[in-house]
């Protein structure tokens, strides 16, 4: 049974740790955005929103490129 359980468990721990890390990162960024808006730091507020928009666009473009080169 170990030939499945051991590597499977390790993979799941890595997967869930990765998901938790990404969720934590998203939460931190959201807190920065809200703080910047509340304290009137509109330059930082707009900068973060622009950064988020850039990351989202890059994320989608990378996905499209991976499809184009048939990695996924």
């Amino acid at each position, binding site marked *: 049974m170990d030939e*499945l359980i051991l590597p499977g468990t390790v993979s799941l721990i890595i997967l869930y740790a990765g998901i938790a890390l990404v969720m934590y990162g998203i939460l931190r960024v959201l807190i920065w955005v809200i703080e910047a808006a509340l304290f009137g730091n509109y330059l930082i507020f707009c900068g973060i929103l622009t950064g988020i928009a850039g990351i989202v666009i890059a994320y989608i473009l*990378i996905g499209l490129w991976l499809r184009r080169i048939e990695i996924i």
Partner: protein
Amino acid sequence: MAHVLVSPLNWGLGHAMRDIPVIRTLHAHGHEVTIAACGNALAVLRQEFPDAPTIEYPDYPVPFSSGHLFVPRFCACLPFMLKAVAREHATLDAILAKDHYDLVISDNRLGVFSSQVPSIFISHQLHYHLPLLYWPAEILAIPANMFLHEQYNRIIVPDNPPGPLSLAGKLSRPQTDVARDRVFFSGILSGTSQMACTQDLDYLVIISGPEPQRTILEKIILARIGELNGSGVVLLGNPQGSKAAFRRGDWTCIPYVPTEVKAELMNRAKCVICRSGYTTLMELAELGKTRALLIPTPGQTEQEYLSWYYREKGWFHSEAQDKLDLIDDVAATRNYPGFPAMSKTAENTHQLYEELLAGYLE
């Protein structure tokens, strides 16, 4: 004479159905086949091969329902899946300890492999397709799949090799050396065969898939079939419902029919309206159907991909369930010619036996 254990997954009847020609071929060459499965998959194979020994071998329920948020739900189910697959693998050891087997054939059952007995995996999905936003998960699935493929001596892909005749498109594309070294493209494998009958049925509608999507499609279809010119049969795919068939104008609606009746109706139909499950698509290819409307089950990424792929290839018309306009979409099926000519199951199973299975059994 060798002894082969064949074990299909019981997620729908598709896996069992495509194993029928493989089992027939093994029997034709004088080998003994023990069928290890559960639920409807086992029932269908018992009906098809009443003399073959069978083992009740539970697998695991579908870990998600169709609909939105499929990937998060699937991720949440992974630990339970892992446990179930490990249990399945342990059960196989017990089965193999009780009798002598020369070969194990697993149809998409991830825990059915052995280090003691040569093991073959049947799957049309060497690669999983996910919505674009989940592309990191699609990449992560590649090494996970590679690990699973490593457990098997060979992988039978019931599809033509990658290229213009590939029915599964990117799903059957081997992406790792592990898969490339093991893969055998058998061509289509269908338990449904051509019958000598006239095409006297204008339409056959096959409603299937998990709830609640099955019921939603049933309502959409029944609301508008009366507007279609011609007669037809609607298979409601609902064995739990009322047993009695009922008429609706020139249409007959049947809650549930056995597989052999369904095969006959498919042979008689000029136009088939159905989900885009891979086994159904192989049946369309086997029967040489030229007109079909494909309606993928919402949230089932494989069906959504195959529908899109066939439309892009110009083979069959497809439409999303929530955008379905039965009259217009049925009319659009006339603009598509169906699959190109390809080798059929009889030739494919002969080749499969000679080039792959015989090496383990003779």
